[in-house]
């Protein structure tokens, strides 16, 4: 109780503080522009939403920042942004946590006698200027494109060094290949929008590759069961989410992408010889002759299949990329990919050049590495790190770090402490992107605008302004007074809009979009192909080490956000765990099982990691996820940083890092347990996560659950048991009456019966919904120890099911949140009515009334209720993110999902206030709102025209365990429709 009250007082304090601050700062001399209808000034209790850009990864999706009392509390996708169209991934959801990170740099710091000591801005800047004065300094920032980037370039020019955009996952080989083939140093834009056949070689396009949200959205559109236009084939060393969702999936060694492409090319060439120019043919032969053939681990029949699919495709698309496959021969392979796409006529259908994709600006790893190396070893060289942490993301970071610290010519502008700030001579606190002006041009003509959405938490400054300050101190006149002016200048230049308050409108919209010039087919210049090195085949002893980027941790920066660590990875079902994924054959030979600790040795380092046996991984591979050894991680998370295991080896042609460096040694060292949230993935013949074959779907033979389990209709389309469970709509028709399988009349819902439809066919397991739920509902983060005890508090979970019909190590995902049962077993057992059924069909949980008997949780068949075992700490400044609309639950009460009831109530009040009925789609729970593939739909089942209601009547629909328990859930699941082509394989 006490703590409850304290929290309440705190939140009061926050509000009050906000008001005080709010007056003088959150409407500063430069006005912030709220989105359309939002109030101009901060009104307590009313959320103001601002548009900006997500900088959690280089994709540059549009953001809406929901602020209360001048504090950002929740990030949503910007519906008007063409890239993400209102959706947001888990990383985007968690981006707000980096604003409130406990590791924020709070004051300028200067190294004195080897120790970083707080200093005044002036001292720090003086020291920095001093360093810069006597050196040539490279400016290393994250990926930037636009006005701010221009500022950085100018500054770099003044400082006498280059401006490098460092992105660990930069697809340099593709850019290099483009240069070779088309004489353009750019990364083409890949789009699944029109594609009908997609072959992905390693590329995890649904969740980490280039522009995941966009790809995911396009995939969902093309792949939806009702009108399926898209077929995805995946070949690659790792079963990541994309592989898991692929219609046809086959594990393939990293170094076999080249040979496979070669084989495909050969096949294509064989078909198209007549149409090809002599030069091209000549070039092709040059490449293909260097290619070893045939590929290992892929049967000719399978290859045949794939080739046919590609050749018969209307708009094929071949994608390749990702750290798992970037090898010594990356450029060669990339070239082959582009060639194949070219020959398949994919250009301008699914592959676009000349869009000026931001990724093109990403610097080569080699360049960045050498910049750092010089700063470390050459007295005239310095480096200025701007927000990025190359020491964490580059091989040999540790050595570089030590040298840099010794050299003392490293200046770090950062908002969070990281490996680089640790070695810097001067550390200057920079604004968090949510605190700063800026812009980000995803591709030519699509400019996203950043605006500060809160008063800076600490004594930080805009990095751009800091640079301007420094250059001024060095005696270079400012071209423009501040970084904001650079942004405006760039905006004017790009979207020269002369309307009176165009700028304000642009800010409100968060972007300006000038349709990009549609590229014409760029002539292919085959004359330089002979420069390409031959394909490289891995050799030697040991295990293939695959460095992996994952949904939640991306290039490792995700590990900085608690939510992303607490959210279990859908594939590993582990929280607070970055396991070493071991292929099954290796697990057998090493005799290790999940949780065992193994020692990994490479020429460069020896590290330890917890094993997770990865079903469906390519034999003899060990995948290590980026994110290990992130400074934010607590001790007990035994996670190695894969970059330590590989050396600074770069592809000479593209300057890209060679990620696949071959073999490492491995030894079993100790027993331990994985912090898994999953009991058993095997469904044990329990019909929980259901699916059906595409052929059944085509024939309209929809299975239905009845008392005897899953039954198919007979020829006449009838089902044997009359007593099958009703679906929501039939049920609503029966309200007030007693259906055949009920002993009592059904409860009546006067106006609404809120419900959700979950399309298992669309769910890719990206866990954005789970993270969104954490963000929206003030769900405490419990940490690894508690997860091990089975005490995680997530209201929603993405379950992993291995059902009878899955193959090749794929798994099915089943998002489970409170089912809002019409006849909830949990309600009736509660002695105090803390759990009850609201008139609008929700399964309400009254926290104040809850005594904590935990009977409801016992009796909940879906096990979606969560108990507060302790009072969970919410340290400053993280508590500023708490959503004031949602109670912070005290120790000893049960909590659970209620379809974001506060949003429902708010919308209902608004509607009542405006004297109108609720509109369909007006209310969106956090999970539904953010789901990138639109797998979740929410609405009022009593409104037959509502989108959700329509979907709930889909014949694929079923309600989990309803046939057995008569719970009449408010959540309808639509079966996954799996491709028949998988039948009989694996």
């Amino acid at each position, binding site marked *: 109780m006490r703590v409850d009250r304290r929290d309440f007082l705190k939140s009061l304090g926050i509000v009050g503080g906000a008001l005080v601050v709010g007056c003088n700062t959150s409407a500063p001399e430069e006005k912030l522009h709220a989105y359309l209808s939002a109030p101009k000034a901060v009104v307590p209790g009313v959320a103001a939403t601002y548009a900006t850009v997500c900088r959690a990864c280089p994709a540059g999706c549009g953001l809406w920042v929901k602020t209360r009392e001048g504090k950002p509390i929740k990030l949503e996708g910007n519906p008007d942004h063409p890239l993400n169209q209102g959706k947001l991934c888990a990383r985007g959801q968690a981006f707000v946590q980096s604003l409130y990170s406990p590791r924020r740099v709070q004051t300028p710091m200067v190294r004195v006698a080897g120790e970083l000591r707080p200093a005044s801005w002036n001292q720090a800047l003086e020291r920095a200027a001093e360093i810069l004065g006597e050196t040539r300094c490279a400016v290393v920032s994250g990926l930037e494109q636009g006005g701010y980037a221009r500022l950085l370039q100018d500054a770099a020019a003044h400082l006498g060094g280059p401006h490098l955009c460092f992105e660990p996952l930069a697809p340099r080989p593709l850019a290099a290949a483009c240069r070779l083939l088309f004489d353009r140093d750019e990364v083409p834009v890949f789009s699944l929008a029109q594609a009908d056949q997609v072959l992905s070689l390693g590329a995890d396009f649904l969740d980490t590759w280039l522009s995941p949200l966009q790809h995911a959205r396009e995939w969902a559109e093309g792949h939806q069961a009702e009108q399926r236009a898209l077929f995805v084939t995946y070949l690659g060393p790792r079963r990541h989410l994309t592989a898991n969702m692929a219609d046809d999936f086959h594990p393939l060694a990293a170094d076999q992408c080249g040979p496979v492409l070669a084989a495909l090319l050969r096949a294509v060439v064989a078909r198209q010889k007549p149409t090809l120019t002599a030069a091209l043919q000549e070039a092709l032969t040059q490449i293909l002759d260097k290619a070893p053939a045939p590929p290992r681990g892929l049967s000719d029949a399978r290859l045949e299949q794939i080739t046919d699919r590609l050749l018969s495709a209307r708009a094929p698309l071949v994608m390749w990329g990702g750290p798992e496959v970037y090898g010594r021969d990356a450029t060669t392979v990339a070239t082959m990919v582009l060639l194949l796409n070219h020959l398949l006529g994919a250009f301008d259908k699914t592959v676009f050049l000349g869009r000026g994709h931001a990724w093109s600006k990403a610097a080569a790893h080699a360049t960045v590495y050498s910049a750092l190396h010089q700063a470390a070893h050459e007295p005239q060289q310095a480096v200025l790190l701007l927000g990025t942490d190359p020491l964490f993301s580059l091989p040999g970071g540790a050595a570089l770090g030590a040298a840099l610290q010794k050299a003392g010519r490293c200046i770090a502008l950062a908002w969070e402490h990281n490996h680089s700030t640790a070695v810097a001579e001067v550390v200057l606190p920079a604004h968090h992107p949510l605190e700063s002006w800026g812009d980000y041009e995803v591709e030519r003509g699509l400019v996203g605008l950043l605006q500060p959405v809160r008063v800076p938490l600490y004594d930080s400054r805009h990095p751009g302004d800091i640079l301007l300050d420094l250059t001024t101190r060095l005696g270079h006149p400012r071209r423009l007074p501040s970084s904001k002016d650079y942004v405006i200048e760039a905006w004017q230049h790009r979207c020269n809009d002369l309307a009176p308050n165009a700028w304000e409108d642009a800010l409100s919209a968060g972007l300006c979009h000038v349709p990009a010039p549609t590229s014409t087919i760029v002539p292919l210049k085959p004359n330089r192909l002979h420069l390409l090195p031959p394909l490289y085949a891995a050799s030697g002893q040991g295990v293939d080490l695959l460095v992996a980027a994952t949904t939640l941790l991306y290039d490792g920066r995700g590990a900085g956000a608690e939510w992303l660590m607490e959210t279990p990875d859908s594939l590993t079902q582990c929280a607070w765990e970055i396991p070493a994924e071991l292929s099954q054959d290796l697990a057998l030979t090493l005799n290790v099982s999940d949780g065992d600790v193994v020692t990994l040795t490479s020429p460069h380092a020896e590290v330890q990691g917890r094993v997770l046996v990865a079903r469906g991984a390519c034999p003899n591979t060990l995948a290590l996820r980026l994110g290990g050894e992130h400074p934010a991680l607590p001790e007990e998370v035994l996670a190695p940083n894969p970059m330590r295991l590989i050396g600074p080896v770069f592809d000479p042609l593209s300057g890209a890092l060679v990620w696949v460096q071959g073999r490492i040694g491995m030894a079993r060292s100790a027993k331990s347990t994985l912090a898994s949230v999953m009991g058993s993935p095997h469904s044990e013949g329990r019909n929980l996560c259901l699916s059906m074959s595409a052929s059944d779907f085509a024939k309209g033979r929809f299975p239905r659950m009845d008392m005897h389990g899953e039954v198919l209709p007979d020829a006449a389309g009838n089902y044997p048991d009359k007593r099958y469970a009703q679906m929501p709509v039939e049920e609503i028709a029966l309200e007030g009456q007693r259906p055949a399988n009920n002993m009592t009349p059904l*409860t009546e819902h006067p106006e609404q019966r809120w419900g959700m439809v979950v399309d298992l066919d669309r769910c890719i397991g990206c866990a954005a919904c789970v993270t969104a739920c954490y963000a929206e509902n003030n769900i405490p983060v419990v940490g690894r120890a508690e997860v091990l005890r089975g005490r995680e508090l997530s209201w929603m979970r993405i379950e992993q099911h291995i059902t009878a019909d899955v193959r090749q190590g794929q798994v099915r995902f089943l998002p489970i949140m409170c089912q809002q049962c019409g*006849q*909830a*077993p949990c*309600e009736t057992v509660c002695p105090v009515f803390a759990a*009850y*059924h609201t008139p609008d069909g929700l399964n309400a949980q009254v926290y104040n009334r809850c005594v904590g008997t935990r009977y409801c949780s016992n009796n909940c068949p879906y096990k979606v209720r969560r108990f507060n075992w302790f009072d969970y700490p919410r340290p400053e400044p993280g508590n500023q993110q708490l959503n004031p609309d949602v109670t912070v639950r005290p120790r000893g009460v049960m909590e659970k999902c209620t379809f974001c009831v506060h949003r429902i109530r708010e919308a209902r009040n608004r509607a009542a206030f405006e004297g109108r009925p609720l509109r369909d789609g007006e209310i969106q729970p956090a999970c539904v709102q953010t789901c990138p593939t639109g797998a979740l739909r929410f609405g009022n089942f009593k409104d037959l025209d509502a989108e959700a209601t329509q979907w709930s009547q889909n014949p694929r629909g079923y309600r989990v365990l309803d046939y057995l328990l008569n719970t009449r859930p408010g959540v309808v699941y639509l079966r996954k429709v799996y491709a028949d082509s998988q039948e009989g394989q694996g």
Partner: protein
Amino acid sequence: MSSASRSSDLLGHFAHVDTLVEAITAAQANAYEVCDVYSPVPVEAAQALISPGRSPVRFVTFAGGLCGLVGGMGLAIITSLIWNLVVAGKPITAVVPFMVVGFEATILIGAISTLLGMLIFAQLPYRRFPTPAYRASFSRDRFGLWLRCAPEQVEAVQRLLEEAGAEKVEVLSIAQGGRS
């Protein structure tokens, strides 16, 4: 009162039930007033002579039980009507589960009223303890027969008691009107 003032009391100590019963019968035959009989155990025979019939406590119990049933069901039904929340689609006035409440209440109130009934009819707690005729041995192994007669009959009664087999006969000296 007036009769009491002229009456005198005798107490016979008995070691055996049959002698006690004999004495009671004789006393009643001679129309001596049997004030009370003390015994360490219930003696049906004696009771049949002194206060025949069954104890009326059972009616109190029955009434109590009935009230309990009605009260219990009533409580459950009325409260659920006052705070009519739907749980698990069960009816608001769900008689089936309320039966349990009704049953328990029946027993509870029934038992309590039984206790009250017993206390009332057995005059417990007995405020005027100990009565002049009560002896500690009556809670061990002796039976006490307390007779009252006119002063002139004292010897007769004494004889009667001794013949019946009283181990010892006391003539109680009671203050005038000490007992009524």
